[in-house]
């Protein structure tokens, strides 16, 4: 158990560093994915099977979509020309090392309380009961936030609305699309 944890921890940190060290955008993205997978194995080790697997599932999807955007927008997607795109490298390094020092000191020095409380037989069930019961408000807020995000991102990202598709009186059939869709409307 311990061995698995330390291997995964080292893997997560190493691939996390690799994200900002490699030149290729594809490699950076998949290094980040590797970091997430390693980290979620440690979450699995803490008995949180559902959340650990959920993170893997989401991160694979997210990173694949991310890599598409990376390759679309970045200067040097394959890293064929060595280049850096950083500003204030030293300052960032100092700040982050200092942060790590503080946090690590805190983790080591503080005497974290243990607990004798009984572990739930099924943590997934406990989470579900909480989200659908006493923590319902959290769930509602999360749902609303996600919905707002969907609307806002679509509005931000697209440049074609329904008036472009269906005409000023919304009566153009079929709509004016770059390619015909599967329903032939």
């Amino acid at each position, binding site marked *: 158990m311990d061995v698995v944890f330390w291997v995964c921890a080292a893997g997560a940190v190493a691939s996390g560093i690799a994200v900002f060290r490699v030149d290729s955008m594809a490699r950076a993205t*998949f290094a980040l994915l590797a970091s997430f997978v390693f980290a979620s194995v440690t979450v699995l080790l803490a008995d949180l099977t*559902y959340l650990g*697997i959920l993170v893997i*599932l989401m991160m*694979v999807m997210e990173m694949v*979509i991310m890599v598409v955007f990376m390759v679309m927008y970045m200067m040097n997607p*394959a890293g064929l020309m060595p280049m850096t795109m950083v500003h204030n490298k030293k300052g960032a390094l100092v700040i982050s090392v200092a942060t790590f020092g503080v946090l690590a000191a805190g983790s080591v020095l503080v005497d974290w309380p243990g607990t004798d409380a009984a572990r739930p037989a*099924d943590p*997934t069930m406990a989470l579900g009961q909480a989200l659908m019961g006493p923590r319902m408000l959290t769930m509602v807020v999360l749902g609303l936030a996600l919905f707002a995000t969907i609307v806002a991102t679509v509005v931000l990202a697209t440049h074609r609305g329904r008036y472009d598709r269906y005409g000023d009186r919304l009566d153009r059939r079929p709509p004016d699309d770059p390619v*015909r869709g599967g329903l032939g409307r």
Partner: protein
Amino acid sequence: MARVATTDAAVEPTAWWSALPLLALLCLFAFAATAFDAVLAARAAGRSTRSAALEPLRTVTGLLVQQRRRTLAADGLLWRGAGLVLLVAAVLASGVTPLGRWAVADLDVGVVWFNAMEIVAWAAVWLAGWGPNSAFSLVGGYRFVAQGLAYELPHMFALTTVAIGAGSLRVADIAGAQRGLWFVVWMPVAFLGYLVSVLAMSFSRPFDQATGSDLAGGAGAELSGVDRLVFLAGRQVLLVSGAAMAVPLFLGGGAGPLLPDWSWSLVKTAAVLALLVLAGRRMPTVRVERFMEVAWMVLIPATLLQALFVSIVVS
């Protein structure tokens, strides 16, 4: 047809070494699916179908001696890793699929595990397309990501529907919950959505646009030798994993008369697999730009309504 299972549907996890027979079984089924496909192809070509069943073996020997290619400015690590990732994820996805009453791992969130593992195909196919630095490959990789965005939500809603129906994410519980009535009977839309998404996730015909003939092989266009073998094996094993998972999710798991439950699992898996392969040969390739609209305008609402219906029935 409702029927009562003769056995207790509880699933017991087996020892770690049972992963080896699982691997063998997956390879066997993957080969059988390929051979069946080759037989159908031979029939269309007006050839003897007997020798055709062995043609995939001769393709494998050819790939074993073939040189591995290199392309200019390829990203070798990501490219050659892609096939391996695909194969490993496809095998891991089957780790939670019970064979009768045995499963390699009986996770309490088995359905989520299965879903997470088959999503790895997104990354693998994109990487296979990106790696060799070739235009056709890359377009194939992008096509698969688009296809993923089309099939994934109906797939997730189908999985959610059965989980709601059984009140559990554990595959064994889901199989056990069908003792009275198979889920396929009262969740037909979810079953259909599941089968479509299995074909799409393993980019098998008719959802093979990512490796289509118009792109000269698309995402796999530059793969040769062992790399190609691993990639193709990964695709077939993924198809088998999806077909095998349909059995505990919709077809009552190992339940059936007379025969022991493990053999019913095998028979049902073979039937689903044959159905998928047959469906692939009867249709042209479904292009993503057409499938996308159907998936979002028809499949997603339909599977959502199915989930709603099941939720109401259950509660």
